[in-house]
């Protein structure tokens, strides 16, 4: 028995709360996380929930880390057991010496002996006077916050202010929840041993920071990007992106007379939402949708139309574990190769891979610009971990670039052309960058109209089956795509420039990378790390690989999808350098698994 022994760990541990979903523990977990956050200590929160609505096991993990490591940690230091269904298994999964706070009836101290147990009679503690039975069930959850706050020495004032924030405007709720907190804390103080192993201590690392989910960040980006049409069909884990968009737009996108500068359609399915995006984009709206794997499959036909007819549109794909319906509430970077060449025939799409919540915001804005500048569907790929979990960030900066609408000719510009004896040809590469000009329906000018189609067409947008027109059109699309290399977000480099070993990651896999490289450095393995932020790949990606001896591509899917895209794009002579590190069990990737695997391959 080593429980409670060993050295005291400050601001570096993880707490897992095991409950059933629909049991209302979300507010409690939020309060617990925010209390620590408000003490200036970096935190991150991950919700591991089942694909149903009520009654199945759910785990919420809060990682507290003074160094700002925010990825999932494999080990749980403090487990709070509220769910009879999984309690025994959960307890069995802990490392010796871990802490287990549990609801008294579960009697978990009988399960093993090498843990430090804290038994709490939550039902009794939640027995706050003047509350209904239903409410008391919820309050039991708040009691564990009180207990843990006391055990970890979280400052009471911060817990109180977190409660005030959580139940803002609902005085009664604030009140009873404070009572529940107090009941828990008092119980711990009076009846439980001291927790000597873990504690929190005030820091100054969260000052001014926000906590936000990636979906909310992307939604705010879309609102700021001037998105005017949003068409969507609900699907986990993407629904909240559009729901946040709607909520923020309702607040910030109505004019003085109450009228909206955006339209929303809850479409009948994903084929329809994709069609609406294209229709809106064609007619000049900045249009978006958001979906996940199954929706991506359903959008395939329309996306090909968008590519070939050159219609702007922003497609958020908040990836979940696939194939098929898969694990709707688990994370995966599984649509990377599918998105890059979605639809039949020869197609290539611009894809952005935000790696942080701030990038969810920035890339959302950038997606709308790129869509119109390149007149094509843009995929912005998040995943469940990034999109639905809680991340700390600096407040997002106000956009410093104006909205870029791309090559649109309005009546005045057409008139200039006419006056200069020139014509408007929808699919002509006037500027040598592969990007043609377009006009919007409704433009009052005799030269404005053209005909859009997914069938073969020539530069004048006339129907054509001529072999040369066809080849010419397809080749220009390749040129346009290559132009994009220099306009999409460039990769970000960090680490040791002189290192032989390169690491490449993207998207939410960013989160464990700092920790991973720190571990590797500590083990004497020097690395330089490049984070890909877009497809097509910028030249820096090629240069990076050229500079390295071995390059590990780290990603969260089975088939090494980004590695595949790289193989197709880089100098064939360098393909031999590429190695793969994969993680695809549906849980967010953790640093230890990565560093272990890299060390294994390094031999």
């Amino acid at each position, binding site marked *: 028995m080593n429980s409670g022994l060993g050295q005291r760990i400050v601001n570096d541990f993880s707490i897992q709360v095991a409950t059933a979903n629909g049991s209302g523990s979300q507010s409690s977990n939020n309060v617990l996380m925010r209390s620590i956050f408000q003490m200036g200590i970096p935190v991150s929160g991950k919700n591991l929930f089942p694909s149903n609505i009520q009654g199945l096991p759910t785990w919420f993990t809060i990682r507290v880390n003074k160094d700002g490591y925010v990825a999932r940690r494999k080990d749980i230091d403090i487990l709070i057991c509220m769910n009879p269904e999984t309690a025994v298994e959960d307890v069995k999964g802990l490392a010796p010496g871990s802490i287990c706070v549990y609801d008294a009836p579960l009697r978990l101290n009988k399960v093993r002996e090498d843990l430090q147990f804290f038994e709490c009679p939550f039902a009794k503690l939640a027995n706050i006077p003047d509350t209904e039975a239903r409410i008391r069930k919820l309050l039991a959850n708040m009691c564990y916050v009180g207990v843990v706050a006391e055990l970890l020495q979280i400052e009471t004032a911060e817990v109180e202010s977190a409660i005030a924030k959580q139940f803002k405007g609902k005085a009664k709720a604030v009140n009873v929840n404070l009572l529940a907190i107090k009941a828990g804390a008092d119980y711990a103080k009076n009846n439980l041993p001291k927790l000597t192993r873990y504690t929190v201590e005030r820091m100054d690392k969260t000052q001014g920071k926000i906590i936000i989910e990636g979906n909310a960040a992307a939604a705010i980006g879309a609102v*700021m990007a001037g998105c005017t049409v949003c068409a969507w069909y609900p699907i986990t884990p993407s629904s909240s992106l559009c729901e946040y968009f709607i909520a923020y737009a309702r607040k910030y996108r109505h004019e003085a007379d109450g009228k909206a500068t955006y339209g929303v359609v809850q479409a009948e399915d994903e084929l329809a939402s994709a069609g609406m995006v294209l229709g809106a984009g064609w007619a000049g709206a900045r249009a978006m949708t958001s979906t996940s794997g199954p929706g991506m499959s359903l959008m395939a036909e329309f996306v090909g139309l968008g590519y070939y007819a050159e219609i702007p549109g922003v497609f958020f794909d908040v990836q979940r574990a696939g194939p098929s319906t898969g694990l709707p509430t688990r994370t995966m970077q599984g649509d990377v190769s599918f998105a890059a060449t979605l639809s039949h025939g020869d197609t290539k799409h611009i894809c952005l891979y935000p790696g942080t919540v701030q990038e969810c915001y920035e890339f959302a804005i950038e997606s709308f610009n790129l869509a119109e500048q390149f007149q094509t569907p843009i995929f912005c790929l998040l995943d469940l971990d990034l999109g639905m979990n809680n991340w700390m960030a600096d407040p997002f900066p106000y956009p410093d670039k104006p909205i870029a609408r791309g090559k649109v000719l309005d009546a005045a510009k057409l008139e200039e052309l006419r006056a200069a004896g020139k014509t408007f040809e929808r699919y002509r590469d006037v500027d040598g960058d592969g990007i043609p000009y377009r006009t919007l329906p409704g433009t009052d000018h005799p030269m404005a109209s053209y005909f859009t189609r997914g069938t073969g067409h020539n530069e004048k947008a006339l129907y054509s089956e001529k072999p040369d027109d066809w080849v010419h059109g397809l080749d220009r699309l390749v040129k346009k795509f290559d132009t994009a290399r220099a306009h999409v977000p460039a990769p970000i480099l960090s680490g040791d420039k002189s290192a032989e070993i390169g690491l490449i990651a993207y998207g939410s896999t960013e989160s464990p990378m700092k920790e991973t490289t720190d571990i590797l450095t500590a083990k004497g393995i020097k690395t330089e790390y490049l984070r890909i932020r877009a497809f097509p790949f910028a030249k820096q990606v090629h240069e990076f690989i050229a500079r390295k001896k071995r390059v590990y591509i780290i990603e969260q899917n089975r088939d090494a999808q980004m590695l595949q895209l790289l193989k197709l794009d880089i100098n064939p002579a360098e393909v031999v350098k590429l190695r793969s590190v994969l993680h695809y069990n549906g849980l967010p990737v953790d640093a230890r698994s990565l560093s272990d695997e890299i060390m294994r391959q390094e031999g």
Partner: protein
Amino acid sequence: MAEVLTAPAAAPKTNRIGLTIEPYKGAESTLCSGCGHDSITAQIVKAYYELGVPPHTVAKLSGIGCSSKTPAYFLNKAHGFNAVHGRMPSVATGAKLANKHLNVIGISGDGDTASIGMGQYVHLVRRNLGMVYIIENNGVYGLTKGQFSATADTGSGSKKGDVNEMIPIDCCGLAIELGCTFVARSFSADLKQLLALLKIAIHHPGTAVLDIVSPCVTFNNHEGSTKSYKYAKDHEMALHDIDFIEHVEPTTPVDVAPGETRTIELHDGSVIRLKKLAEDYDPTDRAHAMATIERARHEQLFLTGLLYLDRSRRAFADTCNLVDEPLNTLAQDRVRPNKAALDEIMNSLK
């Protein structure tokens, strides 16, 4: 009054807004000669021309099929969009939201609507998106060489000799069931009725469904087909003689003959005049419209005319409470919240 005059060397004829018919025409048709779809195209040209709709305000869309090719054959000066098979309604929905002032017309076929397009058709109608939705109904997939479509009548024979075992979908009955606000049936060769119905549809603020029997001369115009010219001509029963009197100047009082005629005023003051034929049919009575269609189905009648009109339901763009200007060209300051707004959001997340 019947005087024949020798015409003077006339200036080209123009419409109300001073345009000749040219900008209302399109490219030359590539359909089979005699195809019903071409007649419908001609009436569409005429309707927009006679109403004096500025061509550039129109957006013409379609799915895929012979019928869906026709937007290329009218209104050259309007933007056109030949989308993918069966999914034009969603594209139209997006376009109308982007610019609610667009006069949207969509051309579809029976395959494009009643088979692959069924889901989108139903939801278009349910939303009451402001657009004219034309089904050029020939009972077959013309472009893929004559397979039965879902509107082919039970027992109808194919050119190859197969007999259709399935029951037909009645796109009009379905539309009414779904709350469609304008539902009409016509025949591509009934030019006068078709023109009147088109004009009303163009004036209608919500979804205006026109299901037009439009014979496929190549694959479905034989004996035994119920979508042939001969069958349709022999069986057409118009519910009424229909006229449309456009309300152009706010002051023009509309002159309506009394007696055998029923008139319906539209939101903009224009008037539909229905001359009673077999019975005095009231197209604003939904239960009666449904019963009439049911009876026609039962007795295998080919009833044409304005089946149903609902002037009360709001069009989709209206329920969206959009600003008056088209969304597609709003300036940045109207679509990007200011710094204070972003700060407020950020503070709420701290």
